[in-house]
């Protein structure tokens, strides 16, 4: 574990929490987030970013634009990526990792396919479904090639987590890699023989399961939190394309856009409205959901899910303990977090 490195793609409340937990535990961090600081992380509740500092930068910038404050050309030029801004904070958290932490300022689309497989884990937030699938296949390819080269001896794997929180809820898709073997904990000091994850579903396959078919023994209909993550992923992707939502753009307009988008999205994906019910008959209003889609970050939700996922990364690194296969659903309303198996009908049987 002492040589492990984890790649963080896009910092959000939950990925910052995972990073904080793992950096404290001595796992080096490579942060990839080329978004501009502080704008991209202004709403992000994390000990790595101080609200007072971020708001001051933004206020100063506005003064300059208006021509009020002192002209300070240096500050305007000092464009910083989120990755560059967080780097000193990460180093400071655990001085033993200085020199092993790194940042990556290229955007995900510019990272070559063989980049991702070198890490012990890739923890991503705010990905699009396409990005998730691409990285999944790139990681598989990397380890497949390695395995071939090592004559089938390689036991290396890369845990790939795609996680987001939205309001009081949060969700994560986890792919431990097809070659991952773990030892179950049997009482004190005893471990089982290495066990395969069964059934194994790659991240790409998870995203290929039609959402309407995502049911299981305890879920007659697709779980609400899973539906929400996918809706959010698609909505945020749409926003990025159109440049809408978030920031200081018209809040009301953005909300209307979301409601329209969500209605159509539920339709396209054949998701019954009842999937969004928190309790029977108590539906989540799309209008309320719009506010959450625009402002998804809630500190304690990120803390809980970040803790749970931190544990999953440790399980993967130590190969001890049964991993969560393959989706984790967290509902902050009651504090429950449970495992859900997302797979096509065939592989479940």
């Amino acid at each position, binding site marked *: 574990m002492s040589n492990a490195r984890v790649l963080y793609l896009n910092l959000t409340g939950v990925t910052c929490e995972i990073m904080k937990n793992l950096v404290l535990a001595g796992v080096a961090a490579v942060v990839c987030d080329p978004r501009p600081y502080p704008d991209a992380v202004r709403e992000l509740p994390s000990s790595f970013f101080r609200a007072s500092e971020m708001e001051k930068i933004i206020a100063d910038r506005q003064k300059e634009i208006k021509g009020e404050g002192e002209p300070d050309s240096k500050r305007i030029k000092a464009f910083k990526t989120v990755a560059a801004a967080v780097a000193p904070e990460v180093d400071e958290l655990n001085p033993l990792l200085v020199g092993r932490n790194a940042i990556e300022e290229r955007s995900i689309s510019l990272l070559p396919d063989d980049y991702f497989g070198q890490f012990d884990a890739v923890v991503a937030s705010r990905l699009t479904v396409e990005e998730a699938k691409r990285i999944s296949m790139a990681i598989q390819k990397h380890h497949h090639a390695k395995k071939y080269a090592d004559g089938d001896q390689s036991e290396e794997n890369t845990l790939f987590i795609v996680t987001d929180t939205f309001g009081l809820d949060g969700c994560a898709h986890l792919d431990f890699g097809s070659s991952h073997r773990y030892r179950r904990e049997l009482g004190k000091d005893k471990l089982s023989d290495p066990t395969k994850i069964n059934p194994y579903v790659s991240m790409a396959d998870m995203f290929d399961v039609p959402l309407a078919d995502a049911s299981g023994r305890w879920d007659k209909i697709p779980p609400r939190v899973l539906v929400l993550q996918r809706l959010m992923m698609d909505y945020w992707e749409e926003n990025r394309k159109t440049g809408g939502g978030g920031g200081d753009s018209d809040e009301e307009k953005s909300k209307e856009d979301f409601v329209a988008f969500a209605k159509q999205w539920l339709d396209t994906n054949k998701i019954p409205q009842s999937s969004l019910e928190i309790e029977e008959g108590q539906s989540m209003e799309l209008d309320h959901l719009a506010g959450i889609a625009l402002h998804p970050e809630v*500190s304690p939700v990120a803390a809980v899910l970040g803790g749970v996922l931190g544990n999953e990364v440790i399980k993967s690194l130590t190969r001890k303990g049964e991993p969560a296969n393959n989706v984790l659903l967290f509902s902050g309303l009651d504090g429950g977090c449970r495992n859900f198996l997302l797979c096509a009908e065939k592989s479940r049987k």
Partner: protein
Amino acid sequence: MSTSESSSTPPILRGIHAALPAPLLSQILSSRILLVGSGGIGCELLKNLALSGFRHVQVIDLDTIDVSNLNRQFLFRSRHVGMAKCKVASEAAMQMIPPLHNADNDDDDTPPAYVPHHGNILDNNQFHVPYIQTFSLVLNALDNITARRRVNRLCLASGIPLIEAGTAGYLGQVTVIDKNAGVECYECQAKSTQKVYPICTIRSTPSMPVHCVVWAKELYKLCFGGKVEESMLFEDEESLRAEKDGAADENDLAEKSSADTTDGAGKTDTEKSTDASNKSVDSTTNNNEPPGEKSTHQSKDDNFESTLRLAAQQALTALFVTEINKQIGMNRYKNAEKVPLPLSLEDLEKCTATEVIPPTQRKDYQPTQIWSPAECLVEMVSCFLQVSNSSTPPLPEFDKDDEMAMRFVTAASNLRSYVFHIEPIQSLYSAKGIAGNIIPAIATTNAIVAGLQVLQAFHILKCQWMYKNGEIEDVGGGIKKLCRYTYCLREKTRRGYILQPTTLPLPNPNCFVCRNAVISLSLNTKEWTLQMLLTRVIKKELGFSQPTILVGGDIVYEEGDDIDPSEYASNLSKKLIGLPSGGVGHGTVIGVEDFTQDLEVEICVSHKDEWFIAVEDEVAGGKKDIKLDDREESEKFEIGGKKPSVPPSAATTDEAQTTKDSTADDDDSSVEVMGMESTANNAQKPSAENNGSSKEAEAGNVEDDDDDSDIEIIEGGTTDAVAATSNENTSESRMPLKKRRLDWDRENQNGDDAKKAKIAEDTPAANSAEIEIIEIDSD
């Protein structure tokens, strides 16, 4: 949320504003939070609170920052070592509070303040009921039962909701305690803190590493403690003789007693040896020289050291050779599986007479190394030398964080393990785990429970706000409905839960702490005497027959069949404020016990010197008026809450009895070891008509934060964790629990007791039983 509202909300709080019902954010901004503890969970809580917009938080913590805290308690850096935890943590959290955008925000225009109190929550002068009552809610982030019980009682007495949390390794739990909600309090379930080891097991027939560690801790006390008689290894000559005489007839007992005699004699040798060392210290430093100048007199020093070495050798011979041979000679082990093997005198001489570098001073030393018998001997000698050469006296009590004490205990316990063929031999690191009952704290678990605590805080604030707005009838009812008892598990339940919420358990009807048995009493403490309190309130009003009254933990009055009434008679005429142990004033909690009724209550006193009574004013046509109360002083008091009911004594007495008997096989001489509770006790907890979920899930119930990277082990689940650390055989008694599983029909859960919890094959106990502690420390 309108555009303008959104832009006036600090960006970091917009998510909370969007997710929670609109008025809740202003409720958060203006609430007052008390946080008790700023260790592992406390740091996480402070971060979550600051980033959620809480602006008024007070933090109580007694501790200062230790190097070992840095890898979990993420608000602390190496430059902070030695500083007060609560101060550093508060300052760090203050930096994270989002600034409010506009000053004219009338929700809260006072500047944010995170106020540290570097003090002890047990200090009643500072932290009492009136103080607690100034807060919206209290968050516990503690590492010991005493403080938890204290906060539990303070909160119950104040009617302030408490969010309690604890972690042990990968396990944890969060719950909400609130008097008005009618839910289980911290003390509803007996928190048996001690595992009782028979004293003869420790002294004569050890069979597990923990027995040797306990013995070594007692040996430390005997060698370095201020009061040797406090060590269980100590026996004075007189009682030895008496014991021998008394038991002379019975062969079996005689054997045991003579064993004890020789045991004691062995220790007496040790005392003599250590005495000898001390005397030689005296003689060398007698010539008015400060101890520091000893080094200038080389020849004298050599002499001094060889005297010490000889003394150490004598002590070690007494402990590991003479004593063992005596026990073998008495046929003590004729039926034992293995007969102990004393250390060889040759080895002893070799290791003590010459200078060998002890293992802890070697360059390649690691705390995880296992020492050979010879290395243990050398280490012990170096401890004796260190004590004799140092100008500062050793700690009188063993402390796992004291470097010398830990070396001593590791070496001594391992030597005993070698002698008694007990495996495995412990490294210093693992011995520390046993000695301090350490479970390495895991940062992720702290993060999880702290997050869950803040989510519960949201619920409580919502209830308080709804009550204020008349939407619900009482806050307690809302809390009972909205809040959850959440287990943090290592292995998922059948339905896949790793964070398993359950409705808040119902209180134990016999709980003296929360079932109306905490009484608030207002009276004039400057006028009332103890006699008045005794006759008017305790006997007449509360129905005690033979009460024992305690103030500040000390008895001020006692009565009963075999108690001399004159002993405390002088206190009866004293005014309450003038009683011993600091007296009874505003905020004092008086303990009253009555063993004849198996009843124990606490009375929280509020001082009130002006009393008024309502009178019908005839002139004003029946209109009510008030006037000064002119009745007798003994009539001027007010009791809040209901009177405690006297429970049927049989049930609770039995329970207490079995708990004790279950582990002790040697009634009058047993040693209590903090925190090594057997799961057997859990099975015997009162099976009151409590709801199933809490009972069955109990074994998964774990306690404690790690404040100091270590925790004291309190409940079943944690015991298992200890077992994992200490390599002990865990008892079979938890197996029945393992067969069951708490399952939760979430679709049917919502506040509906009838459908609440179903018990399937295996409870979370199964998970807790199977956890293994994985160290994730970076260093």
